[in-house]
C-alpha cells in the first residue's frame, strides 16, 4: 500500500493557467508538507499543515495555496502559473511529534 501518494505524477500546462496537485497519506499522520525541488535539485519547504492549520508558510507567492479538506489530504493549488513554477513538487507527512518525514513520489510540473 502506498503511504503518501500524489496525483498527477506529471503535469504540463501553459502560462497563466490554474492547476492543482493532490496529496493523500494513509499513515494517520498529523502533519503534512509541500516541498519544491528546483532544477538544481534544491529542496525547499513551502507549507506544512497540522490538523488543518497552516503552521509554516515560507516566502512563497500567494498564487500558491494549500488546501486541506481533512487530515489525510493536503492539496496544492497554483493560480496564474509562471515559467519559474516549473519544478518537482513533493508532498510529505509526519506524526506530530515525530522527527521523520515520509515523502510522496513527486509531481513534475512543466509550465510552457
Amino acid at each position: 500500500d502506498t503511504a503518501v501518494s500524489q496525483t498527477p505524477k506529471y503535469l504540463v500546462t501553459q502560462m497563466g493557467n490554474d492547476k492543482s496537485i493532490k496529496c493523500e497519506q494513509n499513515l494517520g499522520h498529523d502533519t503534512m508538507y509541500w516541498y519544491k525541488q528546483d532544477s538544481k535539485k534544491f529542496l525547499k519547504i513551502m507549507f506544512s499543515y497540522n490538523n488543518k492549520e497552516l503552521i509554516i508558510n515560507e516566502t512563497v507567492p500567494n498564487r500558491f495555496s494549500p488546501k486541506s479538506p481533512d487530515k489525510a489530504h493536503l492539496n496544492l493549488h497554483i493560480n496564474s502559473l509562471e515559467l519559474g513554477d516549473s519544478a518537482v513538487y513533493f508532498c510529505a507527512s509526519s506524526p506530530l511529534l515525530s522527527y521523520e518525514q515520509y515523502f510522496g513520489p513527486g509531481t513534475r510540473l512543466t509550465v510552457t
Partner: protein
Amino acid sequence: AQTVTQSQPEMSVQEAETVTLSCTYDTSESDYYLFWYKQPPSRQMILVIRQEAYKQQNATENRFSVNFQKAAKSFSLKISDSQLGDAAMYFCAYRSAAGTNDMRFGAGTRLTVKP
C-alpha cells in the same frame, strides 16, 4: 536560521568500495535530528538513516553508517560495500526538535557507482 551544507556536488565510488559523503550544519539549538535521504532516478525520496543529536552513538543501518560530530556540527554518511543501486542523489537534512519541525535540506551530492 539553520543551514545545511554539502560541499561535494558529485562523488564517485567503485563497486564494493567505501565512500563517505560530507555534511555540515549550522544551528544554535542543542536538540535536533539529522537525516540522510536518498533520491534515485525514480525521484522518490527515501530515508537512509537518522541520528538524534542527544545520542552520542553513531547510527548504523546495514551498509550505511554516520559519523556524527556534534561539536564540529558535522554529519557524514559512510556507504560500505557500494552497490550499483546506491547510485543516487543524497541529501543531508536537519530538523529542529522544537518549533515548527520543518526540515532543512542540503544541496545534495550526486553519487555515481562504477562497475
